[in-house]
């Protein structure tokens, strides 16, 4: 139903070339892993795909039943987790999810938010302020937030960041479930996470 087409992406920061001529297509059920040295542009590539950063050249297109989705709308079809992202620390985990439901136009349903928290292993801490969360719990909440609208495109930048073995299992389950729902792009240098990919793009090459 949905597909992603990335054509000849190139990104410069000032005079520094991060990457060039990155092209690929992604279809429902596929998982793409992006790897590369620190500073090779993995996170930037994910941010470009999400529509948060403009590429120097090239383009990213997302299609729904063959029709191109406008760039401004594309962001809302994306669920993204990244180390640089934060959620609202002065709100509880459940209030965060409630906010993102409302702002995304999803009818707020406490039960499905709690179910999402259950899925990411946070149900016991649903009413705790996020500022009191550990970094691993924050990562789990970011995963819950990214999955809230069942996005057709899931972008995971170092998804296992700060997670324990149980958390890593949750990530594995999320990626497996996303194969039924849509596409996944993972940026990581961790072998376990790169191995989830059906294909691998190495930005250091």
């Amino acid at each position, binding site marked *: *139903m*949905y597909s992603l087409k990335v054509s000849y992406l190139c990104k410069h920061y000032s005079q520094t070339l991060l990457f060039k001529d990155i092209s690929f297509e992604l279809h*429902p059920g596929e998982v793409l892993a992006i790897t590369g040295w620190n500073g090779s542009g993995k996170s930037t590539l994910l*941010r470009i795909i*999400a*529509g*948060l*950063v*403009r590429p120097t050249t090239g383009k990213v297109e997302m299609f*729904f039943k063959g029709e191109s989705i406008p760039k*401004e709308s594309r*962001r*809302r*079809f*994306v669920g*993204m987790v*990244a180390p*640089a*992202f*934060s*959620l*609202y*620390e*002065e*709100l509880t985990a459940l*209030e965060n999810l409630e*906010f*993102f439901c*409302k*702002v*995304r*136009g*999803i*009818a707020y349903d406490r039960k499905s938010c709690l179910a999402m928290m259950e899925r990411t292993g946070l149900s016991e801490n649903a009413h705790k302020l996020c500022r009191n969360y550990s970094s691993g719990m924050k990562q789990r909440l970011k995963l819950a*937030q990214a999955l809230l*609208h*069942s*996005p*057709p495109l899931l972008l995971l930048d170092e998804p296992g960041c700060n997670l324990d073995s149980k958390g890593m299992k949750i990530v594995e389950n999320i990626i497996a479930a996303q194969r039924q*729902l*849509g596409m996944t792009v993972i940026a990581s240098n961790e072998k376990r996470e790169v191995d989830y990919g059906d294909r691998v793009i190495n930005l250091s090459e």
Partner: protein
Amino acid sequence: MKSGRWITETGSSTYLSEAVAIWLRDLRGEFRTRYAVNSILMFAVTTLIAVSFSIGSFRIGDDEQPFLYAVLLWIILVFSALSGLSRSFVKEEEAGTMDVLKLSARPQAVFLGKLFFNLTLLGALELIIVPSFILLMNYEIKLPGLFTAMVVSGGIGLGGGTTIVAAMIAQASARGALFSVLSFPLLLPLMITAIKGCEKSAVGTNNPGWPEVRIAVAYSIVMIVMSLFLFPLIWEESMQ
């Protein structure tokens, strides 16, 4: 579960409902942290007390009172607003929540949500400062209707102007200085109009149609409508 829940349920999402969600989130966050409220109120109360002690109600001649009190009132309101209203966007950048917000909400809804939040803060500021100023300075107002309309319409214009400037400076490094420098020329016409209107309400000059209020209302409408067009460009421009 079907993929693309947003597509199927987008019918329930309007700019207004998204804006209200952002407004309520900001209010809830502000209620718990009180960063902006503390900053605005501390500035306003300190300035008000300093002005009332140093000038008082007896050092200014009766003829000059309406004009000078109007000037002092608007100086307190505008500079108090400048001390805290930039927080609406700056805190999103500082906390690292801006990217998630960009992925979740439409730019116009974000602007409206932040505008509602700033207007709420300004409303609270005016509710506290204006009656206190009137009492402490023994400020005699002959046309309370005109005065109230001027304070309300001036507050809306002030909120509209400061919100769009806050959005522009959110990613800059010298935010505080930039916010004041950029806001001042933008707010100057409104300040002059509001001072004139408040002076007339104190003197009792009842011009038909309250021209100063109409100017402030027009300023607010133009500022908010232009900002709704401008904000998506600022939003896109931040994606380098």
